[in-house]
């Protein structure tokens, strides 16, 4: 099962390596990990996408909570939540036809064309991880030159929030 775990962590040197080290030392999967400072400069917000059985996920959350730098943790997939990932993607487009086709695809997926040359088109798409997968899968006729995914960020729906 895929799980999204959000944590607030002290914005200290080495905090990221404590989390990354925990996952590698205990053999847990990381599908993606994103981290950046919050409005409170002393705290970073981290979103981790991981997979595992319920038992493994329970251990992951316990082990993360045990890290001294972790202030608070929320398993987003426990409740209603919103997840977003950003994709930057560059494809080779040589014919007018293929350009038109790609523009239509972008409309369907609500993506944006953010750069364009006679040979390439660069696309930005902010969606769930799953929709990004579908978008990439729809590009079978194109030569993908570069794929840059941000990894998933997530937030709880409604009145629930992760704050100290």
């Amino acid at each position: 099962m895929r799980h999204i775990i959000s944590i607030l962590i002290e914005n200290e040197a080495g905090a990221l390596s404590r989390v990354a080290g925990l996952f590698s030392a205990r053999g847990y999967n990381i599908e993606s990990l994103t981290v950046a400072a919050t409005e409170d400069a002393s705290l970073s917000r981290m979103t981790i996408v991981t997979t595992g059985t319920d038992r493994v996920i329970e251990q992951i959350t316990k082990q993360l909570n045990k890290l001294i730098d972790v202030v608070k943790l929320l398993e987003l997939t426990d409740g209603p939540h919103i997840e977003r990932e950003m994709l930057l993607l560059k494809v080779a487009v040589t014919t007018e036809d293929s350009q038109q086709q790609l523009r239509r695809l972008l409309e369907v997926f609500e993506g944006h064309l953010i750069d364009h040359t006679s040979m390439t088109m660069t696309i930005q798409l902010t969606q769930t991880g799953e929709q990004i997968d579908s978008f990439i899968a729809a590009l079978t006729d194109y030569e993908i030159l570069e794929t840059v995914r941000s990894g998933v960020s997530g937030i709880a729906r409604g009145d629930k929030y992760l704050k100290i």
Partner: protein
Amino acid sequence: MELSGGEILIRCLKDEGVEYLFGYPGGAVLHIYDAIYRQDDVKHILVRHEQAATHAADGYARATGRPGVVIVTSGPGATNAVTGIATAFMDSIPMVVITGQVATANIGSDAFQEVDAVGITRPCVKHNFLVKDLSKLAETVKKAFHVATTGRPGPVVIDVPKDITDPAIKIPYHYPDEIKMRSYDPVLEGDPEQIKRAVDLLLTAKKPMIYTGGGVILGNGSDELRTLVKLLAYPVTTTLMGLGSIPYDNEQFLGMLGMHGTYEANMAMHECDVLFAIGARFDDRVTGKIAEFCPNAKIIHIDIDPSSISKTITVDVPIVGDVAGVLHEMSKLLQSVGRESNKKELDAWWKIINGWRAVDCMTYDRGTDMIKPQAAVELLHEITAGDAYVTSDVGQHQMWAAQYYGFSKPKRWINSGGLGTMGFGLPAAMGVQLAYPDETVVCVTGEGSIQMCIQELSTCLQYGLPIKIISLNNRYLGMVRQWQEFFYENRYSNSYMESLPDFVKLAESYGHVGMRVERPEDLKPMMEKAFAMKDRLVFMDIVTDQAENVYPMIMAGKAHNEMHMSPNCETPQSPQSPERELS
């Protein structure tokens, strides 16, 4: 009062009540060592290898319950300390380790004696700090002690760059009395609802079993455990780390469980219907085959660390909290509700258990002309009246010490259970002897293990530590040989110790007393003689039966009811033949 960084560090230790600082000087900590020189409050113990500094501090912590404190230099000083830090981490021992670091400006430049100490120790510490700002030094030390000693204890490393301790830079000194960390607030009080559920479940048991671990000793819960065990009248076993929390001769005590546990303890685990785990972590040496662990039992588990609960074995009633407090609450509740009527079932259960006890699984061949290691340990118990602090190294001698010494008090049995660190015993004994100069401190070891930190005989001379070293010398790395006998058709690959030193002369050259014992009849008089020398370290090189194995044994990957018994022991079931399953 204005102090330099080096002075602040030592002053913090004084204010923290630190008695001994175990360490070894070097370039990056010279400013600190100068501050050590100019005061008398914190006594520095100069070891001969940084690994020994960490083990000595660890032994001190295990015997006293107070944190052990270490100082080492950067680079190799820090890397040599890692084994001792990992040892303390695996057994949840409170320790604060100060590692020197190259000057802040040189960090990351591959400077002389530079290693990323914070990076290298990260996986084997409870937490670590790199001090980048002198004004944060005192607060960091406070945090380190707070984290090391509260919740589930553990080692904490403080990496201190040389420029932070510069004697030319002084700032006002203030050591906080208390510290709060928003990210760290361990749960200490057990949930009353869970405690009630646990008591209810315990009282429904027909075949109950209590399984306790090192947490009872670390959490000072032995008295509370004894009270509760008496109230319940249930059988109790302890792990290797829990020995002494209940007296060895308590009639409800079934002995140690696990890989080299007793027949009765392991069988009772396998057959029980309610298992009450207290401050124990279901280690693989205890559980054996996970899929067949306590197959019929509902499980209650008290632990201060939430991540220990349902880690390998799913439990039914988890209680997160301080062991002593939770046990006290449970006893109170038990007394108020009174005992339910499971007395008849309990009597029947004890009958079954006593049948297992009658197997006498700890018996061994006492009639040979060779010294049996088990006999040496039993004699040690007799001569020390069972009241010594016993440290050990790792291997067969460790198991025999655990099985045959007979501990009556907590914090007397000091061994590296989790990491299994050879070389632990002698330096750990130094820490214990410093803490308790008037107590009898014994290091039970083997000729393999003792050579891993033998240089500490020099430290023992310097500080006049009258440790008694009981070296069970079988000219083999005995536990390795045992596994090679069982699983590798007697191919004794590199387990034979050739070219052993003359341990008597070795001890003497370090200024101590050495004795070699070869005949069973000499053992008692010589051991008595050794222990009569109250103010001398005596190294007893005891030549033991080479072929002796540790029994009973649950082979790796087997269940509790599949024990391999000693050839001297008659079992109600045929002994399991060892199979080629390793882990």
